[in-house]
């Protein structure tokens, strides 16, 4: 299995999803060799880890799976990855040797970063390829400036696959419409969550406690600050909410290229004293942010899945989620809104803050429901797809 990152060395949902899925797969007796592009101190003793060791390549923090192509500063030796694209190509070249060295029945490759590696490994080993789409170039670009090279890599990867896994019907439709992938080949496997990990108690030392004590309600945005995630809609809804519910604070967790723009926007809207920018959080700080918030809002413009919504609900914080998201296919006990409908978003935010009975109902029913959206269920579905692919070859 070819991945790009695993927690704690992840920059977002891709690493989390790979970890959750492989853990559940191995519990269901699938023997996994997991390949990562570079050597990191990941702890995942349920599978064999292999590193492609892209030498001398210092992983700069700005190279994430989400910023499609970012140039590095000049002066990098020629045998090193200059940018994300050359790293992806180098990863694919290393995949040939790795495929010869290890034994496996099937290659499973996650997102475009690993598709070339998957295609190479499949060709060398003559074993079938399954590509797993967590996000497409269309989602990442938010409709603006699709990178045609990346789009081509995605299309080529899926073309060489015996089966394609999409994380939602939302994504499946996208693959059908824009990538012309045969519908029969695409299988929807929703992501899951280990809900218990988020069922923690709130640390009284949490930095938001003072605000909460003062009677402020906290509305949380958590995600990369990019067009795709819709943080600008969050700010507009915040402005509208504050006109009717002044005792609220809007917490923005995450980093990204829109950060400066959002700070300015908060100032222009005249709500900068009610918007807090917390930067990128992980681990305990992250779960504490979920836990401390009264409400989580995910206004994504285009969201293949949206694991954060499950994490929030599992932590006991009700969620308002964009209808343009895969996770909305898995959860009923959340509020749903079109990302562009700022009025309705504010209407829902104000209702949850105003009516404690609504908060309680969403919290209790959501916590119960999210338990069913498990990685075990995702793994079981994935194994069915493996069987189908191998039977066809057999």
């Amino acid at each position, binding site marked *: 299995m070819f991945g790009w990152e695993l927690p704690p060395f992840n920059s977002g949902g891709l690493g989390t999803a790979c970890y959750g899925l492989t853990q559940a797969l191995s519990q269901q007796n699938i023997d996994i060799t997991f390949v990562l592009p570079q050597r990191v101190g990941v702890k995942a003793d349920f599978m064999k880890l292999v590193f492609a060791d892209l030498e001398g390549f210092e992983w700069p923090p700005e190279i994430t799976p989400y910023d499609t192509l970012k140039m590095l500063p000049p002066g990098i030796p020629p045998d090193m990855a200059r940018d994300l694209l050359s790293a992806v190509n180098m990863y694919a070249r290393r995949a040939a040797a790795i495929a010869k060295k290890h034994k496996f029945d099937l290659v499973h490759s996650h997102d475009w970063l690993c598709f070339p590696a998957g295609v190479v490994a499949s060709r060398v080993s003559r074993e079938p390829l399954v590509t797993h789409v967590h996000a497409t170039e269309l989602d990442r670009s938010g409709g603006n400036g699709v990178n045609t090279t990346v789009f081509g890599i995605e299309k080529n990867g899926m073309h060489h696959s015996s089966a394609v896994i999409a994380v939602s019907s939302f994504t499946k439709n996208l693959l059908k419409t824009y990538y012309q992938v045969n519908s029969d080949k695409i299988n929807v496997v929703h992501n899951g969550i280990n809900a218990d990990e988020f069922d923690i108690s709130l640390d009284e030392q949490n930095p938001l406690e003072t605000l909460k004590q003062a009677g402020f309600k906290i509305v949380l945005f958590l995600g990369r600050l990019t067009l795709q995630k819709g943080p600008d809609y969050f700010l507009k809804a915040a402005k509208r909410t504050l006109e009717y519910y002044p005792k609220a604070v809007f917490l923005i967790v995450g980093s990204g290229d829109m950060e400066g723009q959002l700070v300015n926007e908060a100032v222009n809207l005249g709500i900068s004293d009610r918007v807090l920018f917390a930067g990128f959080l992980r681990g305990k700080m992250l779960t504490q942010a979920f836990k401390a918030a009264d409400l989580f809002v995910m206004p994504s413009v285009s969201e293949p899945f949206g694991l954060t919504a499950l994490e929030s609900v599992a932590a006991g914080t009700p969620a308002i989620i964009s209808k343009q998201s895969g996770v909305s296919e898995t959860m009923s006990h959340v*509020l*749903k809104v079109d990302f562009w409908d700022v009025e309705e978003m504010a*209407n*829902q935010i104000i209702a949850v803050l105003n009516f404690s*009975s609504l908060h309680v109902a969403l919290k209790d029913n959501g916590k119960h429901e999210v338990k069913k959206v498990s990685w075990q269920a995702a793994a079981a579905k994935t194994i069915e797809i493996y069987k189908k692919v191998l039977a066809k070859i057999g």
Partner: protein
Amino acid sequence: MPAICLYFQVHQPYRIKKYRVFDVGHSHDYFESPPGDRLNNRDVLTKVARKSYLPANQLFLELLNKYPQLKISYSFSGVLLDQLTEYSPETLESFQELVKTGRVEILSETYYHSLAFIFSKDEFDRQVKLHSQKIKTLFHQVPKVFRNTELIYRNDLATEIEKLGYTGILAEGADHVLGWRSPNFLYHPVGCQKLKLMLKNYRLSDDIAFRFSTVGWSEYPLTAPKFAQWVSAINGSGDVVNLFMDYETFGEHQWEDTGIFNFLRHLPGELLRHPDNYFVTPSQAVNKLPALAELDFPHFVSWADVERDISAWLGNPIQNDASQKLYELESAVLATKDQKLISDWRRLQTSDHFYYMCTKWFADGDVHKYFNPYNSPYEAFISFMNVIQDLKLRLEALTSKSRSKK
């Protein structure tokens, strides 16, 4: 010699439009969704009238003319009659025509198809009286038999209804109350002197209302001769078979292409083939048949869901909150004597609003989802509560005006 008693519930609520917090203080027409919207009451009513009420009425008129022995009964909610008057007068006329045959009885209920009995006996009494006046005006009948919203029933409802002068009352023939006893007899409610209790035979009723078009059902397809045979088989072990169901069963819940109207067309003839079978209206049953024994309903029972309790309307935190916030306004709203405000407050009492907030099995997409015009129970709650905020503002304005006058 089982008698057959047919009762059909005819009701449509005034659905609340999408009402946002920003509408509070600005918009007071809570029940006026734009045309084409799923919540538009005129659209829904005219659709149901076209698919169900009008063809079913036409058919019953033919059947009443063809079979002089046939008798039927209806319960109309006041809010349905108001909507017919406004949106579909021809449907109202066709009901009036049926009543003119003299073989159609109209039952009593709360005008607003409300849960008032659970929250306020005074308001309940007022709504029962309002309803009775409406029936008298439109149909020249004074109802003598009562049925509560969604067949919600408990011992103290029966005693209240006896006090109001009724001779009979309807309830669900729920297994957990009946035990080994049969729904096919009349019973004597606990604490009453004369009032008689009629129980819905839910198996036979639901065979038509719910299972008629269920292809996987072992008895599918259900035919009139087969159904008449089941009813006749009760001969000797029951006095009356009470077939109670929503009138929308014909043409709306069971679409025309399921063959439901054809089934109905042949049913009276098939039932009457057995010489011991005969039709009664609820008051005829109550006057003619004896009450077999006392039946104790210490807890609320209804005709909804497998639980047959009131958890479809009340029970989760949002339903409890919304109903409490509504009923705590009672004395203040009534004190204003403002007819528009009182009418709006009462339309909000219609049980459907609370049914739409039901979160039981919401995720499984069952019958609750089918009957819910809102995207989710939570959206239904949000619009309802925003309306309550606006109602409160109007109430405050009226109250302070009358105070300043003094």
